[in-house]
């Protein structure tokens, strides 16, 4: 479900000093961030800090979260998409496959940061995709 433009935005300060304005719905997708927000529930202008995640990585994660929330597909534990036949199946499948392909394109460092960040933020689905890609590359290297 697309977050409405009138939904609350949370300021997230990254390791490089940049502050990103993120929809509350997306912030709540991460139990870690949600917790940080709840700790500051009394404040009027909430700013949470992620000292170990850069704005570049966080933007990527936000982008993925948006794709994830917009698609009607559900991911089971293995990360395989099971799609409801009546829903907009082809588009959802495309967006999931696109996500996977995105990971394949990342250089080693970006992949590393994504995996570490999503692990810290406890965003299961994206963390899983990152791990799957890391495993695939390890197998590639071993074969060489």
């Amino acid at each position: 479900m697309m977050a409405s433009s009138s939904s609350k935005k949370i300021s997230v300060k990254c390791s490089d000093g940049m502050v990103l304005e993120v929809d509350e719905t997306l912030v709540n997708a991460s139990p870690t961030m949600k917790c940080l927000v709840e700790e500051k529930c009394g404040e009027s202008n909430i700013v949470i800090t992620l000292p170990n995640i850069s704005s570049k990585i966080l933007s990527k994660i936000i982008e993925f979260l948006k794709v994830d929330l917009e698609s009607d597909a559900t991911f089971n534990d293995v990360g395989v998409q099971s799609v409801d036949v009546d829903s907009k199946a082809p588009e959802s499948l495309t967006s999931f496959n696109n996500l996977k392909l995105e990971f394949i394109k990342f250089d080693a460092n970006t992949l590393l940061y994504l995996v570490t960040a999503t692990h810290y933020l406890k965003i299961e689905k994206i963390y899983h995709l990152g791990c799957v890609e890391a495993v695939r590359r390890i197998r590639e290297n071993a074969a060489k």
Partner: protein
Amino acid sequence: MSFKSIVRELKEMRDGIGSISRRGVDSRRWNGRTKSHVAPDITLTSLEPIEQGKWANLPPELLLDIISRVEESETTWPARAVVVYCGSVCKSWRAVTKEIVTTPEQCGRLTFPISLKQPGPRDSPIQCFIRRNRETSTYILYIGLVPSENENDKLLLAAKKIRRATGTDFIISLVANDFSRSSNTCVGKLRSNFLGTKFTIYDNQAPNGAGIQTDTCNHVVSTIAYELNVLRARGPRRMHCTMNSIPVSAIQEGGNAPTPTSFPQIIDEPFSPSPTLKGKTEPLVLKNKAPRWHEQLQCWCLNFKGRVTVASVKNFQLVAAVDPSHNVSAAEQEKVILQFGKIGKDIFTMDYRYPLSAFQAFTICLSSFDTKPACE
């Protein structure tokens, strides 16, 4: 970054870790026979460590998760080489990989070279085959039911037969092209007497893993004795293997067999052989299961459960030789601990299980190749 420089960087990172270099050598050896994959049609970037140590310094729980996924994804060879690869990337990866990988006894899978000296699983055997090369007098042990069509089989151990004036020696090595006793690929030897009726298996390390790498294999693992079956003329010979390194308690209730966890270190110091089992511990003795005489077929029969298809005097099944005082359950007594037999010209199957290790099983089978006409 070119492909070659990526591979070189990875190798440099691996070789740069001092104490790990030997493990790196081992894994390179084990990776030798794997085939490369067909490259997919999208451009890929490999796991290049642009800054050394980045991937090595992943939080432990993350590393554990990723390497666990790798380990679970490849359980059979040759693809399982990827697990050995993970163990050779760097120190932290090695620690996590060793933590994740369990012994053959626990998971039924062979992973690192040391797995070859650890007891097999208790419930079902690990199935291997041996290929004999008469021209070079070598014998190679592979994992797998039978030779694969594309000959992409994983080599476990290799042996070379050397005839001496007073008998025969088999040198056992981790590789097929190096049988030098001073090399770190040598894991033991088998020595026979002149008549080919008595054999002794030597290991280069004690059962608990202690010992140092020397060019003499000093620890007696087992003695094997072949005898003519005097009660039945022209009947099958009898085999007795006294496993000096395995106590009878290993097959009693709650018992365990010695499980080394690493190969001996290379140290340039004089070495004195240590005893294998403590004086009063009784060693496990294995004997060959007596075949039944099949009146209609007019031959001796053993049930090899389809794993042996050609009649040969070399074929055997070993079970524990115990008496009631040993307190071994009937189920354990029934278990075929080692089975060896011919399936084709120069191809033999070898199935082994707890408490034997691949090394012990292989050397016992080798003795079957060397017995002289005096025994037949």
